[in-house]
């Protein structure tokens, strides 16, 4: 399996959340990941990108979100990066049911954690947030090319 890298930068618009999760699941499909794992990837990407738009940029459409996909022998690594407001307390933000928005359930990070094999969050107030998620690729048959 050849290494592959894709990056996409898009406006912080709600309809681009669909674009981001479709791209990630297309790459997952090329790696022959099972359908349930493709669905998990879609949820995780949707959560991270929605968070950037909703929280990072307070729903303002004039900013950019980046999605970076990296395929290696064993992993699909997905990064979602914004240059928004940042997270004050990452540990608290990642707890179940924690949300700074009373209308929300505080499930996003829980889904990213449950559906991916690894989750790292880096953030600093005023400069932005980077979420790095990893899905392991279990290759049943050693690739011959």
């Amino acid at each position: 399996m050849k290494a592959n890298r894709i990056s996409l930068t898009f406006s912080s618009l709600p309809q681009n959340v669909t674009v981001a999760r479709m791209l990630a699941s297309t790459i997952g499909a090329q790696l022959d990941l099972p359908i349930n794992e493709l669905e998990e990837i879609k949820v995780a990407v949707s959560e991270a990108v929605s968070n950037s738009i909703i929280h990072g940029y307070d729903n303002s459409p004039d900013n950019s979100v980046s999605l970076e996909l990296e395929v290696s022998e064993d992993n699909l690594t997905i990064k979602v990066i914004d240059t928004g407001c940042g997270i004050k307390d990452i540990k608290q933000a990642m707890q179940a049911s924690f949300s700074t928005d009373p209308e929300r359930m505080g499930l996003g990070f829980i889904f990213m954690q449950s559906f991916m094999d690894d989750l790292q969050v880096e953030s600093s107030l005023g400069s932005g947030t980077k979420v790095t998620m990893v899905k392991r690729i279990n290759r049943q048959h050693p690739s011959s090319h």
Partner: protein
Amino acid sequence: MKKRLERQTLHLYVDGELDMKTASQLKNMIDIDIDKKGIRTVVLHMDDLHFIDSSGLGVILGRYKKLLPLGGQIKLTNVPPNLYRIMELSGLPKIIEFSQEETAL
């Protein structure tokens, strides 16, 4: 999205993907019928729903919370099996009534 009004009950046939964009449309649609038409029971038919994330789940829980003090309720029916896991993780089935309808042949 197809909808049907039956006395004080709103039936919505939720299809496609429920994410931050479509969930806010769903929210507005339900809230208008609660506020303007006096709807007190909302039934979401999920047969043709392919995807849901926390924004969609949040809107469902939010309608539950809005209807509760009005003596109303929200119910989910025919949630596709591939969405069971995310539903379970969200805790929604502990709060909201889920049901499975026989599909007409």
